[in-house]
């Protein structure tokens, strides 16, 4: 066997898994099967990206190519979720929700989930059920939002989607309390899961939706953490925001120290709609957050906040593409990173303003705090503007903690660690305050506090 074969093997093993699934009648006869099949063909053709691809220049995913991933078994109806202690849920900051869906290693855990408090016009169900029931609305949007070409991971997700949620907000429907989707990995070795979430928010609807991706190592009960596990989460979330819809979205990535997380968030915004997303990444060996948002109607507004706080040899790559296709829209990207040890951050934000998207107001900021000499950030803004009456700004700051400020605080009586903690916390808290789900914000606040210098 040649070495090239080895590199391809794992693409082929995903394909082989697909062929095994096809043997199941329900899978092969589903309306969704041709969509899966087409996506798989494109995935097999392109393979996984390499650092030669401009979009992956700073993020080497070689490590995932050599693993023979076992597929999570979320597709089959019969899958039953591993039992986890419901008390663990409290640690995910769920609080009171409109609906909660908890998936454990790809399987819905009914005992931990609840969808019985849904207000009128709000529907939350397992994606596989919505696919099985041939939901027309779902069929017309699934795969139509996250459409960026050559997104190998999104293609693989479409081919192998195994779990996730379908959220539908009818026109004018309001979910007062958040809808929380929790994807827990308990640490089954070398499992690959492909969760998918489709959110359709019709005109003037409102909701707050939380996606938490959590590895159980380090947060076991009684402080007894499990060993870090190698697993792969390949998630895609698509959001359709109808005219005047207002969606808040929080994504928490707190995967195992040895886990890989690839996530794509696709958003399309119609006239006067708003989408505000806050992405907090605190753990995971390698995390890639793709965002692609398209402002398709006048008056649309989207905000993407991010806070990454990493250490060890962890890497996070935040990769955003914001397209202004209509006039009078606003988009903001505020990404902050705090990198300790030999961790590595990548930020790439592309703003694309189409011809005719006049009066666009697009802003991008990437601020980085490097807490160690070995920590690293690669920050790459890109503006492509084809309209003449627009306001686009971008800025990046990279720095260590200001030692003059530390001395100032110490000269007032704070210890060195106290002064450092205060400054790091201040840097993080602006983004944490964007989390509107209080128990979640408190949990993340505590997580950040825990990582601040002590003494």
């Amino acid at each position, binding site marked *: 066997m040649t070495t090239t074969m080895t590199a391809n093997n794992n693409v082929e093993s995903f394909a082989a898994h697909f062929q095994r699934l096809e043997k199941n009648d329900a899978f092969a006869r589903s309306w969704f099967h041709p969509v899966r099949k087409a996506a798989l063909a494109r995935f097999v053709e392109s393979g996984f990206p390499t650092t030669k691809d401009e979009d992956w220049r700073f993020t080497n995913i070689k490590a995932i190519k050599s693993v023979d991933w076992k597929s999570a078994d979320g597709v089959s109806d019969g899958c039953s979720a591993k039992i986890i202690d419901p008390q663990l849920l409290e640690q995910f900051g769920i609080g009171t929700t409109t609906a909660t869906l908890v998936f454990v290693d790809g399987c819905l855990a009914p005992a931990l989930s609840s969808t019985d408090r849904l207000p009128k016009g709000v529907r939350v169900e397992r994606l596989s059920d919505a696919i099985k029931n041939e939901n027309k609305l779902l069929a017309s949007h699934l795969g139509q939002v996250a459409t960026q070409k050559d997104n190998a991971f999104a293609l693989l997700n479409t081919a192998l989607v195994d779990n996730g949620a379908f959220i539908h907000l009818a026109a004018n429907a309001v979910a007062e309390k958040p809808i929380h989707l929790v994807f827990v990995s308990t640490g089954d070795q070398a499992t690959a899961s492909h969760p998918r979430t489709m959110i359709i928010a019709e005109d003037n609807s409102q909701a707050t939706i939380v996606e938490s991706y959590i590895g159980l190592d380090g947060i076991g009960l009684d402080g007894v953490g499990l060993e870090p596990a190698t697993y792969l989460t390949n998630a895609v979330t698509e959001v359709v925001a109808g005219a005047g819809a207002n969606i808040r979205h929080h994504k928490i990535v707190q995967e195992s120290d040895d886990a890989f997380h690839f996530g794509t968030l696709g958003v399309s915004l119609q006239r006067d709609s708003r989408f505000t997303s806050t992405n907090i990444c605190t753990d995971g060996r390698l995390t890639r957050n793709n965002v692609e948002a398209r402002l398709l109607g006048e008056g649309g507004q989207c905000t993407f906040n991010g806070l990454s706080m990493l250490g060890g040899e962890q890497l996070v790559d935040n990769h955003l593409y914001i397209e202004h296709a209509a006039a009078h829209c606003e988009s903001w990207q505020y990404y902050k990173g705090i990198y300790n040890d030999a961790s590595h951050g990548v930020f790439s934000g592309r703003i694309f303003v189409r011809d005719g998207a006049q009066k666009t107001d697009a802003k991008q900021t990437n601020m980085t705090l490097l807490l160690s000499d070995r920590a690293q950030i690669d920050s790459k803004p890109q503006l492509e503007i084809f309209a003449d009456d627009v306001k686009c700004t971008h800025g990046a700051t990279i720095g260590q903690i200001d030692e003059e*400020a530390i001395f100032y605080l110490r000269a007032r*009586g704070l210890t060195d660690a106290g002064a450092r903690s205060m400054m790091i916390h201040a840097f993080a808290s602006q983004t944490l305050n964007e989390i509107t789900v209080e128990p979640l914000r408190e949990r993340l606040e505590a997580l950040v506090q825990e990582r601040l210098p002590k003494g």
Partner: protein
Amino acid sequence: MAMLEIRNLHARVEDTEILRGINLTVNAGEVHSIMGPNGSGKSTLAQVLAGKDTYEVTEGEVLYNGKDLLDMEPNERACEGVFLAFQYPVEIPGVSTNYFLKAAVNAKRKHHGQEELDAVDFLELVKEKAALVELDSKLLSRSVNEGFSGGEKKRNEIFQMCVLDPTLAILDETDSGLDIDALKTVAHGVNCMRSPERAMVVVTHYQRLLDYIVPDFVHVLREGRIVKSGGKELALELEAKGYAWVEEGNATPVATS
């Protein structure tokens, strides 16, 4: 025992010697003024006393209430009652004055085995002291010094001094950049702090501050040494004759009381 006893203090940055044998004794209840041309080492002296590690002390010693000051961490010095009002107050993004000052007050209280101040008592203290130096209390909930005017920064320093209630206050050019009204207010804040238990070292370029904060002693610093010391008249003399006067051979190294 003197409160502060500086003996033959030498300090350098890399290969440059900045302080070249400073001797100064400050007793409780006294106000000393240090004057001197630009670059003579005034701020360096102030920062060395506060514990800035950019400066390496190569010789000499500093006793504070009989203890080795140079052996203490900057925060220990602060908790023991040393306060430095910075010539160039630092901006701290995202941290409000109220927030860090509460931590500072409580660090000091903890150091002295006292209970922490609760939010209500702290706010009361802050309100009183802000009024004393006419500092707009809205500024206190904004990021420290960020977007503050020069005058606001200096008022903020004096305000912090009043809240922290130090034993030894070192004011580094607190008057620079202040108009006459602001100067009077700041001086009022400082004068309220004068007491037999407290000492102050006031670094300034200009005699005008000393019209409002009348010193007991004036020292002239030149090239890292105190070249002349005297009473408050010395400031007036300097004002009239300029620093060139001390450079023309009138310099007499002095060891004060």
